[in-house]
């Protein structure tokens, strides 16, 4: 085997063996614009029909600083052109303020997916509290 091919071979094996997250996060702003969301799937690229996880980070939409707010996250995925979504429900765990780990992700079909993230937050409104819900959808091509 030529030397350059051996090096390529070794590099590819290392790359395939690594269970590393995506080097560049998928990112978007919620509908209200108040929150920036970064998502890193692990492993990357996302494997077809195999489980993967997400690390989700929330940042203030104005200052860009990591969000310290106490929020509840819902994560799901949908295939707009198919009319159905992911067959599993996810579990979201807070790792630290503004950072969440999502398990239970699995894209069972090839095609265009839409990662749907909903953020619910309790806000004071005069004498009472209300739950404010914000959301975003990130396209992912598998």
């Amino acid at each position, binding site marked *: 085997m030529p030397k350059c091919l051996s090096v390529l071979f070794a590099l590819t094996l290392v790359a395939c063996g690594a269970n590393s997250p995506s080097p560049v996060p998928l990112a978007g702003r919620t509908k209200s614009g108040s929150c920036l969301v970064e998502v890193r799937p692990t492993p990357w690229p996302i494997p077809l029909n195999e489980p993967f996880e997400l690390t989700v980070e929330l940042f203030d939409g104005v200052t860009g600083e990591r969000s310290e707010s106490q929020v509840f996250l819902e994560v799901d995925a949908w295939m707009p052109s198919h009319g159905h979504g992911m067959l599993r429900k996810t579990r979201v765990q807070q790792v630290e303020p503004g950072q969440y780990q999502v398990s239970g992700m699995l894209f069972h079909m*090839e*095609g265009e997916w839409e990662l749907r993230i909903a953020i619910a937050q309790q806000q004071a409104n005069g004498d009472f509290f209300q739950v404010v819900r914000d959301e975003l959808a990130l396209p992912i091509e598998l």
Partner: protein
Amino acid sequence: MKRSRVLLALAVLCTASCFGNSAAEEVRAQFTERELARILRTALVAPMPDPTNAFEGNADAIDLGRRLFYDQRLSGNGEVSCASCHDPAQGWTDGRQKAVGVNETGAHTPALTNVAHNRWFFWDGRADSLWSQALQPIEHPDEQGGSRLQTLHLLAEDPDLAELYGRVFGELPQEEVREAYPRNGRPVPEEPEHAHQLAWASLSEQQQQEVNLIFSNAGKAIAAFERCITTNSTAFDRFVDGLRTGDADDLAAISAEARSGAALFFGEARCHLCHSGQMLSDLEFHDVRVPRSGDVEPGRWDGIAALVADPFNGAGVYSDDKSQSANVELRHLRRTRHNAGEFKTPSLRDVSRTAPYMHSGAFSTLEEVVEHYSTLEGAAPFTHEDSERVLIPLNLDQAEKRQLVAFLRSLTAPLPAPSLLAPAAALKQSVVANHNL
């Protein structure tokens, strides 16, 4: 997971380094890069271990499972074994639209080739392991019509089975203990006066647990055997090897017509959306509008409810996986209104031997299946308006239909090895083979 990705990388590298000859280039040029990647993902590797069954690789468990698989004495009338419907000579199915056990059942028999690769079992996925699947037909009143108490007595009273069981799982209860157990019995909570239920209710909780443990072990032995029903030596597998290595003989393992069918299957016809990966199945559930005469079938909707309620599921006390990560699939299970009318995508490996087709056996031939997807004439209405929107008529011409069928026939596996046949049948086949030498 890592293994399959490494294999894909290896495949791409080998393909790049070995495609020096023009014949290989010509074959490869029939496919786009994405189609090639999809085809290479069909390369079959060993199934993932099932941590809920600690005995799956045990030679004695496999032997015991093989004997139980072919043993008619597990049935209520002494005439039906697992193999009555899962006939190795017929692609591990029975050739019938609806299976016939002690009575005619409402289900079409699924094939068992490479069955251990599945994520869920039965058309509606109401079992999450091969061993818990194996238990249900034994007790189904229309399938084998037996019971867990009957299984216990059979294991204990047949010296060969008892010895094998003892080697794998430990000693069965002594005769004086077994005398307290009725000959037949199983839980039938929906029929409190059923003889099996009355017998079951006569046992203490501790006795019931002991019986359940022995019954689950019988299932684990059968699963250990069924895990051996595997083949990756179809003509298409050889062709895939050829794509990797450039070997001219392997590339010629399927006809030009079948190659064109593969290009359609993994390309324009988009069959690969559901029929992907090693099993040519996404192992999940869809409503593909199979013609039906009655109401919407519950399908996966009922399957999920039954799975969650099953004491032999991966979260149950009879599972051998006690780790923190146990039962991860069950934890993420989701039941939605879309599940009604959905059935599991069947594997297409060895599909030419497993007619009739679809969960209801609605189509007699592969040609009829292809025609269904080509026109959707007579298709059942979608269960939900927003169901599988990508399911639209393919409008195939006659040549394309022939190509798809030729591709499907290239997935035919060799006949099962003697080690998978009933002990007597294996001996007969071996004698015939020797005679022909």
